[in-house]
C-alpha cells in the first residue's frame, strides 16, 4: 500500500513540476562556446600524446595509428554520410564508392604520375564529387528505397571495376603511394602517425564547420523540408533535385578526402579495402549515434571504430554484433544515442526519409496519404 502511494506521489511530482529551462550548451554565450570548442580540439589533438591514454584505449596496437584509421577516418566519413542521410534523408548504401574513388585518385596520381599528396587531394575530392553528381543526376529522381539499392549497386560496380582494370592495378591494387611531405618537424611516416592524426583532425574540424554552417543555412532548411515531405517541399518551390544533388556531392567529396588520406596513410590499396560492409558500418555509425546530430555521429563512429579495436578478442564477431545492434536500435531507439530533436520527432511520426511502411494499421495510417508518383 505504502509503496503504491509513494509511487503515485513520485509520478505526480514529476509531471507537475514546472518546467525549468534545462541549461543547454547552445544557450551559453558565444565566446564561452568557442573556448569549449577550442579546448575540445586541443584535447583531441593531444590524444595520442597524453601518457596513459594509449594503454587504456588501445593496449595492443599503436594508439596514434588506431586514431587515424579506423577512428579518425570513420568519423570523417560518418560526418560526410551524415550530410546525405542525416540532413537530406537520402539513404546511400554505396558510400564506400566515393571513399574508393578518392583513394584510387590519390594513389594513381601519386604512384604513377608522381603527384604530391597535397596536389592529389583536391583532385580526389573533385573526382568524388563529380562521381556523386554523375550517379545522383539520374538516380536522385527515384524513390528513396530504389536509391538505396542503386547506390549499393554503384558501390559494387566501382569495386568490381577496380578489380578488373589493369590500369588500376587489378586485384593487386596500387602500391607506393607517396606520403604527404613533412611540415616543419612533422614527418609523415609508417611509424610516425601523429601527423596523420593532426591531418585527419583538421579535416574533421573543417567538415564540422561546413556541416554546421550548411545545416543552419537556406540549404539546410531545404534539406529538412525534403526529408520531411519531398512532395510538399517541391510544391513550396524548393528545387528538390538540386538540393539532393548538393547533399550527394558534398557527402561524396568528404568521403573522397578521407579516401585520399587513407591511401597515403597505408601507401597501398586493394579493391578489397572497399567492401559493402564498410558502407554498412559507416551507416551504422551515423544511425547509432543519431543521424543529423554532429556530436551523435562522432560518438557513433567512434564506437563503431574503437570497440572492435579495443576488444580484439571479439573482433571476429564484430559484424554479428553490428547486425544485431542495427536491428535493436531501429526497433527501440530509431533516433540513435544522441538524437537530433527534430529527427527524433520525424522518425516517430514516420517521415524523415521515405514515408511510412505500407500495410500499417493505426494512428499513422490515417495521417499519411501516399502520393502515387507515376
Amino acid at each position, binding site marked *: 500500500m505504502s509503496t503504491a502511494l509513494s509511487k503515485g506521489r513520485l509520478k505526480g511530482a514529476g509531471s507537475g513540476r514546472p518546467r525549468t529551462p534545462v541549461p543547454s550548451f547552445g544557450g551559453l554565450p558565444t565566446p564561452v562556446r568557442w573556448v569549449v570548442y577550442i579546448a575540445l580540439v586541443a584535447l583531441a589533438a593531444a590524444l595520442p600524446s597524453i601518457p596513459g591514454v594509449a594503454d587504456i584505449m588501445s593496449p595492443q596496437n599503436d594508439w596514434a595509428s588506431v586514431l587515424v584509421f579506423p577512428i579518425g577516418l570513420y568519423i570523417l566519413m560518418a560526418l560526410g554520410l551524415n550530410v546525405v542521410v542525416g540532413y537530406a534523408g537520402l539513404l546511400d548504401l554505396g558510400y564506400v564508392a566515393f571513399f574508393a574513388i578518392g583513394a584510387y585518385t590519390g594513389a594513381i596520381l601519386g604512384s604513377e604520375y608522381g603527384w604530391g599528396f597535397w596536389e592529389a587531394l583536391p583532385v580526389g575530392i573533385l573526382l568524388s564529387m563529380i562521381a556523386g553528381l554523375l550517379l545522383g543526376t539520374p538516380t536522385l529522381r*527515384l524513390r528513396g528505397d530504389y536509391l538505396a539499392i*542503386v547506390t549499393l549497386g554503384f558501390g559494387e560496380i566501382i569495386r568490381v571495376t577496380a578489380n578488373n582494370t589493369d590500369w588500376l592495378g587489378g586485384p593487386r591494387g596500387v602500391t607506393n603511394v607517396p606520403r604527404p611531405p613533412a611540415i616543419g618537424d612533422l614527418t609523415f611516416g609508417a611509424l610516425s602517425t601523429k601527423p596523420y592524426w593532426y591531418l585527419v583532425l583538421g579535416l574533421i574540424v573543417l567538415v564540422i564547420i561546413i556541416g554546421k554552417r550548411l545545416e543552419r543555412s537556406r540549404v539546410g532548411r531545404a534539406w529538412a523540408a525534403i526529408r520531411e515531405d519531398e512532395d510538399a517541399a517541391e510544391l513550396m518551390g524548393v528545387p528538390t533535385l538540386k538540393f539532393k544533388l548538393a547533399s550527394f556531392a558534398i557527402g561524396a567529396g568528404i568521403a573522397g578526402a578521407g579516401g585520399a588520406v587513407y591511401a597515403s596513410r597505408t601507401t597501398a590499396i586493394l579493391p578489397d579495402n572497399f567492401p559493402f560492409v564498410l558502407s554498412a558500418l559507416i551507416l551504422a555509425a551515423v544511425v547509432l549515434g543519431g543521424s543529423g546530430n554532429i556530436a551523435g555521429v562522432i560518438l557513433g563512429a567512434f564506437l563503431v571504430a574503437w570497440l572492435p579495436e579495443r576488444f580484439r578478442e571479439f573482433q571476429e564477431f564484430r559484424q554479428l554484433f553490428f547486425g544485431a545492434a542495427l536491428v535493436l536500435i531501429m526497433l527501440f531507439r530509431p533516433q540513435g544515442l544522441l538524437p537530433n530533436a527534430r529527427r527524433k520527432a520525424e522518425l516517430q511520426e514516420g517521415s524523415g526519409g521515405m514515408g511510412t511502411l*505500407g500495410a500499417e494499421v*493505426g494512428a499513422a*495510417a490515417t495521417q499519411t496519404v501516399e502520393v502515387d508518383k507515376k
Partner: protein
Amino acid sequence: MSNFVDLFWSSTIDGLTIGSIYALVALGYTLVYGVLRLINFAHSEIFMIGTFASVGTISLFGLSGPASGLTLVLVLFCTAAAGMAASGASAVVLERVAYRRLRTRGSSRLAALISAIGASLFLQEVFALRWSNGELHASGRDYVNSERVLEKTELFSIGDGIVRNDKLLVFVAAILMMIVLDRFVNRTRLGRGIRATAQDSESAVLMGVNINRVVVLTFLIGGAMAGLAGALYVVYFDQTRYIIGFVLGIKAFTAAVLGGIGNLRGALLGGLTIGLVENYGASIWGAEWKDVITFSILVLVLLFRPNGILGEALGRSKA
C-alpha cells in the same frame, strides 16, 4: 562479338537456368514490397539459409555417389522441402523480430530498411560461425561443399548449347512453382487477401482482412520460394557459402524491379531477362564483368522505365 555468336546457345541455356533461380528469389522481394512497400534486404539471407538447409539435408542421406531412380526423387523432394521449410520459417521469424514492431508503430521506411540491413549482416555472420576446439569462431568463410545428388548428364543439344538434366530440372521446377504461386495469389481466398492489402491496406482492413496474417503469409510464401531456389542452387552448383545471398539477392531484386516490382509475372520475366543478359554480356566482355552488367541494367531500368517492363502493383493491375 564473335564470342557472342559462338556461345549464343550455351549462354541462353545457362542464362535461363540461373535466371529461374533469380526469378524464384525475386518473388519474395516482389511480394513483400507489394504488401509492405519494404525492400526486405535480408531476403538474400533467407535464400542463403535455404541453401544451407539443403546441404544439410543432402548430407543426412549419406549418399556414396549420385543417386538414381526412387532414391533420387526422394532426396530431391526432401531437399526441396527442407529448404522451403527452413527459409519460410526464418522469413516468418525475421518479420516477427525485425519488422513487426516497426510496422505496427507506423515507423519510417528508412528505419525498416536499416533494420533489414542489420538483420542481413547478422544472419550472414551466424552462418559463418563454426565450433572448433570447443570454441565458437566466425571462421566459416569458405564454400561448404555438398555431395552431388544428381549425375549431370547431357540430355540433348540446341545448336552448340548442351542441355543438361540439372539445368532442365532447375528451370522446370522454378516455372512449375511459379505457376502454382500465380494460381494461389489470383484464385484463392488468401491470395485475394494479399492482393487487397497490396492495393489498399486500410480498405482491406475495413473489409475484414486480417492484416497480420496476410503479412506473415507473404513472408512465408516469399521465404518458401527462396528456399526452393536455395535447394535448386545446391543441386546445380553443389556448394554454398555464408555470403552467397548477397550478390544473388541484389540481382534478384534487380529482376523484381525490371519486371515491375509487386508484379509476380514480372518477377519471372525479370529473372529470366537478367540471367540471359548477364550471360550474353559475359560472353562479350568476359565473366568478370557479370555483376557490373547487372547493376548497370538496374540503373538503366530505373532511369527509363522505373515501373518495370510489366508495370508495378500486385493488386492494381490484375485485381
